[in-house]
């Protein structure tokens, strides 16, 4: 069964190639079928492999499928080989499964679009690259997938390329993530230089053997990899690209910019967790980046008025939670949150896509309202997704995964109360912004009639994901609910257990109580501010400090402005002013001097004998003088 593993990326690659080459000649029906069927097949194979893995785990808890040697030169020999363990298995399963439903949804969403087959080509290429990223047994192959998904992200953000705004957003996404990739590449060089291989498992072994705890190399490598992760996963200070990435079609936002690609950074850190364990400074940096990002993005989310931008900031914030989990050593909790987040955030985006299509591509929530009755399925999808996102106690998936991270932040030996407080504040902000969105969009007065109700191709994926957003959390029940950590146990063979040091002040249940309180405070706040008394927030944001703060948060703490001044403009200015290449002046200058010399000498050639005679005499006199004087 395991030897079918290579098909999981190969099928989408093949169908992407078919769609991109022959797509223009295919009927939409054919292209849609090919696009969905390939991902469906991949998902089916991953399910079979998972089933086999659980029933009869491979020896050592992992399986490597060697395909061919990529290159072999001077001691550097990365393979094209796939490595399957429980971590990559879970990720591949979630990615292919969620991708399949998003593809099905897209058939209806993209119906009639000029670039229908191109869309599915890019999406399939994305899934293939993402699977390579997850299964690559060495960091170079992972990097191939990493850049591949970045490329697809770029292509899909700029999918409607005739709009210069989209093209700009696409370029921004590519360049900002590539800033992170530059750091990551340096990390790769360092790891290879010191450890002699890029194959992940031997490399981790070598690191454990060669590097002492707190080693400088481990810290440097960890920080460089973190740089890459920050770019791809849109964490501070490289988060600025993700909100603009919403220019892409909504299924793209759901798949790439919420459920899968943006969590690649989380996977990278989990995959190389040994290095972070050896480097407490780097690990702390991960936690701090996560904690700060999750709160900062929460503030940005609460001020947005574009439905997709709210969700985008929400994604940034939720990945902040995953980073927080990784940073405090709650490895499995972070992966758990990745899974539940994939369900509920994909759900929210798909539901927002339903809203957008039925509102004639209106995205401003203040121009909507009262949609509860008109779009009941969408409404309930939003309620379920929103509750799961904010963590409605006991019945939603998000509650369990977030709870685990928060408890890790508090109880782990590398955690701290501060990090936990950030996490709880984040819960409050999450609850506030998501219910603000729901109340404004679906409650209140109806401002604009929806044109139609979405069909079953969009409905079924939303129903499936709604179910998963609820039941997806029951695979891991905390100690106060019977203590059934199935998910953690499953991941045990690839990720170390979270070390729980009992916190002196609080029990797990007590800590959870604070998070629940934060959730209800946020919900109540949203109800009061955005349903009952909408004039209050308007008044607050209208003048003085409130206005300034609103503006500051609305622009995501002004970071775009800052980067524009610091980097974009200087580079642009240099390239524009130096368009003609200042170095060439040396050569054109030499040429001009020669020409000037020729021109001035030419003046002496007048054809007048008097001049020649004078020059002759003068020359002789000067010559004689020189000789005499010397």
């Amino acid at each position: 069964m395991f030897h079918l593993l290579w098909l999981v990326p190969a099928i989408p690659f093949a169908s992407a190639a078919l769609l991109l080459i022959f797509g223009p000649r295919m009927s939409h029906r054919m292209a849609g079928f090919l696009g969905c069927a390939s991902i469906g097949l991949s998902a089916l194979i991953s399910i079979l492999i998972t089933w086999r893995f659980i029933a009869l785990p491979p020896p050592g808890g992992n399986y490597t499928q060697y395909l061919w040697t990529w290159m072999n030169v001077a001691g550097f020999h990365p393979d094209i080989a796939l490595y399957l363990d429980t971590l990559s298995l879970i990720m591949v399963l979630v990615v292919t499964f969620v991708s399949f439903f998003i593809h099905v949804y897209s058939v209806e969403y993209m119906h009639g679009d000029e670039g229908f087959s191109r869309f599915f080509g890019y999406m399939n290429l994305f899934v293939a690259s993402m699977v390579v990223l997850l299964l690559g047994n060495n960091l170079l192959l992972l990097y191939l997938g990493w850049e591949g998904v970045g490329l697809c992200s770029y292509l899909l953000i700029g999918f409607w390329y005739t709009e210069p705004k989209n093209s700009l957003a696409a370029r921004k996404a590519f360049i900002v993530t590539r800033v992170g990739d530059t750091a990551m590449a340096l990390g790769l060089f360092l790891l290879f230089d010191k450890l002699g291989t890029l194959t992940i498992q031997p490399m981790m072994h070598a690191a454990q053997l060669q590097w002492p705890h707190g080693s400088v190399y481990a810290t440097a490598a960890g920080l460089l990899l973190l740089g890459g992760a920050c770019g791809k996963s849109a964490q501070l200070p490289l988060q600025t690209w993700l909100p603009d990435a919403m220019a892409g079609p909504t299924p793209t936002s759901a798949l790439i910019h919420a459920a899968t690609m943006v969590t690649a950074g989380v996977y990278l850190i989990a995959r190389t967790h040994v290095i972070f364990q050896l480097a407490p400074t780097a690990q702390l940096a991960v936690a701090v980046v996560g904690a700060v990002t999750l709160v900062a993005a929460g503030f940005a989310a609460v001020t947005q008025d574009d439905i997709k931008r709210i969700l985008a900031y929400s994604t940034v914030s939720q990945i902040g939670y995953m980073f927080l989990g990784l940073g405090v050593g709650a490895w499995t909790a972070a992966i758990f949150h990745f899974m539940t987040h994939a369900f509920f955030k994909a759900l929210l985006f798909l539901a927002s896509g339903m809203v957008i299509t039925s509102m004639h591509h209106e995205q401003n929530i203040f121009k909507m309202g009262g949609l509860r009755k008109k779009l009941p399925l969408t409404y309930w999808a939003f309620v379920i997704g929103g509750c799961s996102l904010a963590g409605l106690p006991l019945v939603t998936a998000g509650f369990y995964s977030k709870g685990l991270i928060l408890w890790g932040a508090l109880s782990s030996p590398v955690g701290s109360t501060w990090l936990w407080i950030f996490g709880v504040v984040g819960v409050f902000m999450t609850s506030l912004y998501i219910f603000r969105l729901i109340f404004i969009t679906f409650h209140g007065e109806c401002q604009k009639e929806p044109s139609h109700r979405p069909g079953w191709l969009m409905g079924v994926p939303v129903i499936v994901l709604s179910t998963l957003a609820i039941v997806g959390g029951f695979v891991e029940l905390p100690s106060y609910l019977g203590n059934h950590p199935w998910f953690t146990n499953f991941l045990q063979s690839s990720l170390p257990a979270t070390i729980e040091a009992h916190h002196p002040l609080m029990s797990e249940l007590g800590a959870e109580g604070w998070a629940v309180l934060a959730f209800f405070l946020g919900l109540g706040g949203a109800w009061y501010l955005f349903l009952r008394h909408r004039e209050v927030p308007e008044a607050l944001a209208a003048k003085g400090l409130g206005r300034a703060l609103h503006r500051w948060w609305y622009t995501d703490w002004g970071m775009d402005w800052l980067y524009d001044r610091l980097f974009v403009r200087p580079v642009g200015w240099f390239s524009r002013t130096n368009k003609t290449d200042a170095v060439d002046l040396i050569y054109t200058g030499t040429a001009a001097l020669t020409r000037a010399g020729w021109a001035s000498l030419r003046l002496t050639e007048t054809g007048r004998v008097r001049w020649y005679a004078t020059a002759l005499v003068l020359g002789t006199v000067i010559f004689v003088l020189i000789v005499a004087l010397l």
Partner: protein
Amino acid sequence: MILVWLIAIPLVAGVIAGFVARRSQLASRLISLLAMVVGFVISVWLWAANYSHISLLTQRQWLAEFNVPWISSFGIRFHLAMDGMSLLLVTLTFLLGIASVMISWREIHDGVGFFHFNLLWVIAGIVAVFLAMDLFLFYFSWELMLIPMYFLIAIWGHERRVYAAVKFFLFTQLSGLLMLVAILTLYFAHHAATGVYTFEYSQLIGTPLAPHTAMLVMLGFFAAFAVKLPMFPFHTWLPDAHTEAPTAGSVVLAGLLLKTGAYGLLRFVLPLFPRAAHEFAPIAIALAIAGILYGALLAYGQTDLKRLVAYTSVSHLGFVLLGIFIGTPLAIAGAFITIIAHGISTGTMFMLVGMVQERTHTREMDRLGGLWQTAPRLSGSGVFFVLASIGLPGLGDFVGEFLVLLGTYRVSPMVAAFATVGVLCSTFYGLKFVARAFHGPNTNKWKLPDLSGREIALVGAMMVVLLWLGLYPQPVLNTFKPTAQRLEQVVHGPGMGYRR
């Protein structure tokens, strides 16, 4: 003898194609194409026949050799020899030769015969440069490729063709003369030491030279190769020449002529003057980094598509220079892969720009935009080669640049960091190219024919080669290996104290 054929076929076919064009232009094109295909087939055949034992070649030096006296009184011999490196470069030459003939099929209408004569003679010159093992013959070939190239630019070029051609000629000629002086100095120094007058490569290796003299002679060679490469700050002939040349000229320039500079460094500068090269390395590395960053930023500033692509060459060849002077096995292998991959990717970029220009009669970004709507295949191919150029993993350029960077990191993490930023900067110009040419609204209402069958075949073949280089470069690396090992022995030989 087969090596003589490789040079003679394009020379003879060039003459025939030149004369036959008066009767039939088509015949002239077909003869040229046939010559290129035959050359390509011969080189691929040589490769396939020797592949199994190529990596065992360390003892027996050459794959094939041809050695007869030419001007005996001066010790000049007609000595051609081929090893893995020259085999690959010759193969690349004929591949791009085929492309150049095909891309000119519709573009060149005037002086078809003389055009193909020049084109084929340039190719012959390049092949001779890659095969010559007698320094006099080498210099002779070096000049042989210069003059037809001058005509290609000056006659069939665009608006400022004469300026560009003269500039190209002056730069190459002046630096070439420095090399001639260096060759002659070496020739006499060898005579002084051994009493033998010879231009033979294998004998001149190890000629004892005073360190100061060695440095000067090395710089003479280096000047010629650095200008061809081109190295910052001697790069300014390149944007003009590439931009003004006809498409085939740009393909040959970027794909092959620049590579002769890199080849010269690998074949002559490092083995002949290992110590001087080692001492000079810090300066060369600094200039390589400057070229990588400066070229990328200047490419970003351009609004002429062809000029943009031209500046990217300055940046990419910076990686080649960096890899060669870093000198670790990884870096040298990376430099070589970059040589090949850049030839394919940038060569094809010039073809695609040529296709855009042929259809729209402009290369200005401000007048283009939105081409995807009307010519999706052309635009999609453009995106593909832009991605190769900005180092997308899975395509050839990435392998080369990654190996160079990996090798560089061993020697100096700081230099590697700067060069990696250069890769980042490549994203700026690459995405600008796509955004301004293919994306955006089609404001000028272009209605263009998409790629023809001939063009699809050409571009598609190049795509396959790039994917192959990106996903399984091992055959190229294996073929290059003996050369690299020999280079390593010389460079890292006893007493050299070269880096690890």
